[in-house]
């Protein structure tokens, strides 16, 4: 791996290096105070998105509530990026009647990597603050997609579990394989299922939205500078 030359040296180089092409021009240090916000806003938004993602690690992303007559308070499972809480044991106990595998067997790899992965995404967002070219998109894209990947993975596992029921289970003859809805209501046996997004997922969506807004302001602030720099180099 080559050592990145000090920034000052890059600026002093006569021709525009690849590194400079990547990082882009610096915001003018002599900008008037009311214009400084123009260059700082994208950085602040990206940092906010990173913080939102980091906080969301500790909050539930998704919840399913099962309502049945004999469970007046319902049963629920909350899904975090790295764990499941709530009535998991009871739901597993009920699921064994229809031959569904224990919930703990789902998404084991994803859950084991999730904290490291989200930390990485957040670090990439913070790193993106220092990139003043269109290449910023490359760094923020994983964080932008994160909630969608989460939902896609949830759906994959729900489908996988719902469609692969043990045919020798006690109630296998009365419950056909099914895919529970990832949002909204469903019905399994005497249970009404209600799937809802939770605060963590909403925060991740909010982070995605903020990233898009950040990209917009980023483009507004730095595109003219980049064009100026490219014109200067040429």
């Amino acid at each position, binding site marked *: 791996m080559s050592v990145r030359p000090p920034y000052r040296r890059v600026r002093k180089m006569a021709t525009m290096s690849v590194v400079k092409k990547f990082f882009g021009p610096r915001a003018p240090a002599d900008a008037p105070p009311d214009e400084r916000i123009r260059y700082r806003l994208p950085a602040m938004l990206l940092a906010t998105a990173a913080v939102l993602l980091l906080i969301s690690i500790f909050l539930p992303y998704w919840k399913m509530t099962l*309502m049945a007559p004999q*469970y007046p308070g319902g049963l629920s499972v909350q899904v975090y990026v790295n764990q499941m809480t709530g*009535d998991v*044991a009871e739901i597993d*106990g009920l699921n064994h*009647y229809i031959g569904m595998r224990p919930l703990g067997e789902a998404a084991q790899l994803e859950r084991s990597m999730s904290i490291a992965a989200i930390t990485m995404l957040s670090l990439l967002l913070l790193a993106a603050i220092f990139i003043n070219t269109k290449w910023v998109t490359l760094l923020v894209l994983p964080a932008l997609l994160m909630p969608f990947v989460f939902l896609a993975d949830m759906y994959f596992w729900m489908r996988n579990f719902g469609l692969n029921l043990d045919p020798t289970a*006690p109630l296998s003859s009365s419950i056909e394989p099914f895919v529970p809805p990832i949002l909204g209501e469903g019905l399994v046996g005497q249970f009404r299922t209600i799937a809802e997004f939770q605060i963590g997922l909403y925060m991740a969506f909010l982070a995605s939205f903020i990233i898009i807004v950040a990209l917009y302001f980023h483009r507004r602030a730095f595109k003219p500078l980049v064009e100026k720099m490219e014109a200067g180099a040429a």
Partner: protein
Amino acid sequence: MALNNRNFGRTKAIVAFLLVLLLAVGLFASCRDQQEPGSEQLEESGISSDLAAIAEARGLTPDDVSAALKTYTPSGTHDEYILFASGGHAGQVYAIGVPSMRILKQIAVFTPEPWQGYGYGAKGSMEVLAGGYVNEDLPLTWGDTHHPALSETGGEYDGDWLFINDKANARVAVIDLRDFETKQIVKNPISLSDHGGTFSTPDTEWVIEGGQYAAPLGWSYSSIENYRDDYRGMITLWKFDREAGRIRPEESFAMELPPYWQDLCDAGKLVSDGWIFCNSFNTEMATGGVEKGEPAFESGASQRDMDYLHVINLDRAVEVAAAGNTTEVNGFPVISLDTALEEELLYFVPEPKSPHGVDVTPGGEYLVISGKLDPHTTVFSFEKIMAAIEAGDYEPDEYGVPVLNFDSVMETQVELGLGPLHTQFDDKGYAYTSLFLDSAVARWSLGGPYADLNDDPDWTLVQKTPVHYNVGHLVAAEGDTVSPDGNYLVSMNKWAVDRFANVGPLLPQNFQLIDIANPGATMQLLYDMPIPDGEPHYAQIIKADKLEPWEVYPEVGWDPITQSVSPHATAAGEERIERDGNNVEIWMTAVRSHFTPEHVEIRKGDHVTWHITNIERAYDATHGFTIPAYNINLSLEPGETETIEFEATHDGVFSYYCTEFCSALHLEMTGYLFIEPDDSQAFSESD
């Protein structure tokens, strides 16, 4: 949400219904003077003709309708109070909701009870029961529960523990209100008869067990000729260790008393904290023998106009016992009567004829005593008793016990009616006394610091309401604490006679709920509740929100006796059967809807130790477990681990199964215990 809308709609409907009913009641009440509450009147009053028609069809009076409204508890709603009643000679305790009067639970205490798996193989409960056998070779399978006592903090029920005595065998049980199960039974080492228990001191440091029928102390023998010399009464002070939830017999002690028959006790509170009061009868020391021409006890014990209230200095007695100034009787420290007199622990106060209850007012200032053969109830002043003791205003009785002067310590007497027994209190300055012979409950006003709480003149009978019939104890909501609630009173009637459909010559007892919420002559009888199982004596009513029982045991593998995780807790996947010679040990799990293992193969003559863990965490997911022919039935509540131990004395194939209908596949929750014949027998049979 659809659900909320539906609930809201239902709530609106209920509120509307109740408003209509309340309106109906108000209008009913305004028509009270008229002869019949016919539906015509109701309809004329503009009341829903449906409701009027229901009342008419069922023959309900306006009072009936208001009683129904005050007690009806819709499905899914809970009672405001819980009443803990003794189960009498059923040997158990009832938990009953007030005002609905629905039985919520029968707590097994002195009598084995299969639903709770109490005494049917579960080792913990077998040991609790065996701890109460007076003689190890004579199992006791019942008790005569009399007086439940909730644990107290600062004179208020705290909802943690419940104690109850067995009069028949002089025993005291400890019930843990986290799981409503009996954890300990202690037998009185010096007496075989108690009645003045259980009562709790204001912080439940001590549980009081007063005696009843005098006998030689230490379960020993002496001829009735020696009654005055060898027979003795007693009071036992059991030390309660709140942390461990156990009575500590090794830190407890008793006091020898003259051979009068001690009856009920009460602990002083607030100003009288540190003192205990027990009354007595048969100070005549009648010895019976009607068949020999002697006066029967019933007359021999009713000759004197006065018996003795025992006033005991608990604080000083504790010091004397701690100092070791005791005599060992049957291995138990007893403060002798001589020591009690030397140390000034015991005084007598003359009390009207053959009293039953001694009840301390909420502030501890007065003792209310009703001589059951005297139409008055007598109020003694604690302050005056202390002053008389200070002034030496007493004469010794036959045993040298100082007897205070009645007139110096008596505050007042209130004429209530015939056969007054027990008294409870409310928050409005009223006392309530049961009148056995009148079959009535009397409300009367207190004086002194309670005078301003109502408009009635002090120390006056306000109202007598008939009850059906022969009321013994009565109980008001938190009515023996330092801050009674009022609201409800339950009259615990010994006879029901015509109150219920005849079910043969053995009739249920009758608990009658009475509304005491409003002052003046407004008590209203609300509800009759049959108790078809033993004859309850005393009860206590606690605010339901003071109880915080567990929904399921805190962790899987819970031993309810130690209230900690059992060393035999078994998780799913850890099930196994191990054999060591003739000893077979089984670790089993139960979960809807199977036991693991489902096959257990042993041999005749094996000694079997069998641990079962209910690994469920769901509210109400209890499993049972029974083995045919071996008299085994367990209740395994969610998280509970139980152990059974038995000798495989009979071979065969035994289907064990879950005795609680746990799930749709409950019938499939079974397994086979195969007990092979032993070789020698198989050989001799084939020979």
